[in-house]
């Protein structure tokens, strides 16, 4: 590491991007993904680039290392001035390939979004970390391995020695992302570019990864460019913020200023859409609030403030009692089962008409399995499910079909769940036709148009295909399809998680509006605590296939009793840079629900801490794990 004199530190930026433009495609009208963007990065500081999908933030980050060369992109103008550890500043835009290779991985390193796919599956962890070390530092195999082990210890991975010889598929997502960080920091880069490094991770793992990046940055004096769409992460990590919108930089300011006094209308709209944990503190019911959206460059308010007083607690629509779902994995040579996934273990809850129950939990908590079991996509191992008083086990095939009509599912990925070869009108009409709800073709068409209008689209959209819509519009189409069979219960499985915050806020409002109009019940499955707070009447927290806490949203959020609920709530990044950053440290992996046959998990006993608020009694074992 070199020692720039302290006077130099602030007036000589490490990286200076000047009027950068990046184009894709050829011919007369190439697509300009980044337009005339400029910013500086000072040594040792963190610059966050925020924006929604299509804002050009990821393209900008790839362009800095000229990695856009490999994705069909072309730098159409501007300069990228970088000061490497040796020699004078150079413009990376017209640097030679050899020079770029010298800088990549040595002076500038990058961490990518998907830890599951950013490590090469056929090489060991040790091999992949050593590679950069022998390339840039000229280390021999033995020294490179020693350094790799040190690096793994630095990112707080236990058992570094064994880990060196492991393959990526043997590690969890959080561990892989730590390996990725170790790899990126191997040669002590002066600039680290992190492109949504925690977006794909569970919230408690995200908190750990953010801490590691922050600690190592302080230790090594590395400057960081942090690409994210999550304003909570921005508030936790950034010194300065660049806001991008439609390929342009619309605002740049120190982090506190951005949050306290956003100047550009887009920044204001973005911040207003961010769900904030704690925004409903003191209020017993969920609440719809207006959303600011950009309409042709002008901010516009949509929606109204409305208290969601829709639940009717006379008689539950769905009663789940001791539901258990297990899957066999791992077989011996003779086909005997050795291991099982204990996805759901004796889970009990009710949902009332007009009520939203949120199921929250991290990977392996069993939240999606519960949803799929209710939709009859997965066969339960045990327990009873009653819908409208009728036991699902005792139902005739005809009744089960009718149940499929009354319980509908909205998936996470709206693109994958719509058939690309059919018009959206066809997809929406399908449940009506399958269940024989309306026979007359004209009447079906009228119904499809009506449904499209209800979800905020136009009747003429029925003739178009899924690829002609944006992500948010596609999710509206999926909602219209779910409503087509006139269900009583809708299971929304991470249905808003993949959407940009402004779209997410609108879809959440739409779901709440439809609930009020049609007295719908929702089972809202998610890992996002801030969205849960906004939409749900009651909350059930799942951990390793069991409910550890269930109660009204207000009780669970304002008076969390179980240590896991508290951990989950404290791990959520808060979109407020004024808050103390060094929070309680969260350590530890999420344990696996896979167990050897014969080793049954202990079932929690619950106690009622206040009316309707139940908490699992914690054994020492669980406290140790959590």
């Amino acid at each position, binding site marked *: 590491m070199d020692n720039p004199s302290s006077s130099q530190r602030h007036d000589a930026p490490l990286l200076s991007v000047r009027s950068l433009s990046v184009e894709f495609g050829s011919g007369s009208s190439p697509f300009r993904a980044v337009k005339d963007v400029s910013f500086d990065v000072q040594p040792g500081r963190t610059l966050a680039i925020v924006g929604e999908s299509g804002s050009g933030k990821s393209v900008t980050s*790839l362009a800095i290392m000229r990695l856009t060369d490999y994705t069909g992109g072309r730098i159409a103008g501007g300069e990228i001035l970088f000061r490497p550890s040796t020699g004078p500043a150079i413009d990376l835009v017209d640097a030679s390939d050899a020079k770029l*290779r010298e800088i*990549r*991985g040595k002076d500038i*390193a990058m961490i990518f*979004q998907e830890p599951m*796919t950013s490590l*090469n*599956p056929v090489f060991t962890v040790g091999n992949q970390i050593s590679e950069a070390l022998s390339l840039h530092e000229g280390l021999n195999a033995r020294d490179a391995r020693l350094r790799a082990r040190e690096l793994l210890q630095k990112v707080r991975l236990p058992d570094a020695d064994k880990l060196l010889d492991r393959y990526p598929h043997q590690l969890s997502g959080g561990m892989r992302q730590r390996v990725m960080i170790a790899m990126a920091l191997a040669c002590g880069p002066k600039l680290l570019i992190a492109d949504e490094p925690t977006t794909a991770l569970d919230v408690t793992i995200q908190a750990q990864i953010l801490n590691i990046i922050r600690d190592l940055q302080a230790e090594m004096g590395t400057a960081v460019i942090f690409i994210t769409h999550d304003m909570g992460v921005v508030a936790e990590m950034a010194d300065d913020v660049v806001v991008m919108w439609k390929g342009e930089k619309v605002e740049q300011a120190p982090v506190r200023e951005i949050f306290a006094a956003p100047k550009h209308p887009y920044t204001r709209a973005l911040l207003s859409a961010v769900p904030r944990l704690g925004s409903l503190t003191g209020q017993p019911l969920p609440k719809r609030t207006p959303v600011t959206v950009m309409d042709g460059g002008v901010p516009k308010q949509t929606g109204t403030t409305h208290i969601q007083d829709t639940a009717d607690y006379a008689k539950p629509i769905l009663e789940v009692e001791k539901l258990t779902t297990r899957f066999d994995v791992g077989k011996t040579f003779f086909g005997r089962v050795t291991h099982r996934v204990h996805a759901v273990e004796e889970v009990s809850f009710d949902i009332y008409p007009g009520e939203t129950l949120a199921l929250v939990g991290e990977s392996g908590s069993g939240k999606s399995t519960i949803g799929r079991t209710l939709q009859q996509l997965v066969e339960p191992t045990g327990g009873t499910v009653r819908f409208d008083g009728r036991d699902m086990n005792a139902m005739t095939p005809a009744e089960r079909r009718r149940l499929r009509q009354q319980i509908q599912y909205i998936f996470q990925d709206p693109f994958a769940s719509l058939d690309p070869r059919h018009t959206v009108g066809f997809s929406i009409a399908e449940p009506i036709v399958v269940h024989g709800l309306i026979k007359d073709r004209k009447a079906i068409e009228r119904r499809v148009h009506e449904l499209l209008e209800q979800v905020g689209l136009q009747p003429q959209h029925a003739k178009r295909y899924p690829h002609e819509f944006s992500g948010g519009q596609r999710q509206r189409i999926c909602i219209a399809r779910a409503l087509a069979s006139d269900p009583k219960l809708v299971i929304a499985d991470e249905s808003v998680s993949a959407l940009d915050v402004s779209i997410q806020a609108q879809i959440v409002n739409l779901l709440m509006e439809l609930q009020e109009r049609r007295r719908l019940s929702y089972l809202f499955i998610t890992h996002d605590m801030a969205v849960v707070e906004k939409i749900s009447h009651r909350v059930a927290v799942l951990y390793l296939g069991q409910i550890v806490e269930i109660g009204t949203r207000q009780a669970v959020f304002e008076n969390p009793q179980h240590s896991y609920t508290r951990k989950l709530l404290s791990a959520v990044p808060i979109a407020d840079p004024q808050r103390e950053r060094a929070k309680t440290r969260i350590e530890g992996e999420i344990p696996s629900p896979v167990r050897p046959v014969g080793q049954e998990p202990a079932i929690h006993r619950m106690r009622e801490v206040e009316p309707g608020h139940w908490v699992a009694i914690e054994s020492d074992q669980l406290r140790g794990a959590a």
Partner: protein
Amino acid sequence: MAGFILKRLLQAIFVVLAVTLIVSFAIRLSGDPAVMLAGGSNITEKDLQNIRQALGLERPFYVQYLAFLKGLLVGDFGRSFMGGTPVSLLISKALPATLLLAFASLLLSIVLSVPLGVHAAVNRGRWPDQLIRILSLVGLSFPNFWLAIMMVLFFSITLGLLPPSGMEGPESFIMPALTMGIILTATNVRLVRTSMLETLSQQYIMVARSKGLKDWVVLYKHALRNSAIPLVTYIGLQFGSLIGGIVIVERVFNWPGMGTLAFDAISARDYPVLQGSITVLALFIVLINLLVDIAYGLIDPRIRTE
């Protein structure tokens, strides 16, 4: 892994048994070897009976088949109807010639198709890709016998550079291996290209580039091994059709291999030679596919631990 190989070996024995049964049965439907052997026109039914008796053909089919299996256990395939040479001797002469030709053409096709396929994938949509794809299409449209005859016409008759047939010295390898190799390359290039395209779009390739690795390291270390599974699978399958194709190519070049041996045996209704040669070829195809399964585990650690 050991359990897996054991399972596969048991399967292999089953496959080979099934093949021998079908072959032995089918050839007996194709005509009477006694008539072929007797030749001439003034033969009595009595003469034919005698010939059948001498060859053991008057016994019921299952007895003949079991006798064949019994011989198989000790490596005895019986004797040829034509001249009484032991079948094992015929096979031991023909097999090396065929295997040499098969592996030479496979090797040639790998050496050609891997770099070409990688190059096409890297230059997707640009002229090197277009050119390689057109050449591959041209290669695919050649029937192998036509290609073989064209080569003989050009290299042997017009230029007089290479021997037109037979197996005498290394230069006689060139044309048969080229014929087979070119046809294999034409399909393999497309396979390598498609699976490289898939791999190159993976994030770990971008990560490798972000480390500052040279292009050839990214392509041939990081990408190729991840693209190898489809190619290895296909080569295993190809081996079967390769053997089929070799029958024709061996005929054209008069190559003294298994193809020629089996072909002549069919024409002469020489049951023992045909049974023996098909059994040995089936054994090889099964063995190659077993090696392919083992290769999966070596290429991809995710398969190893399953």
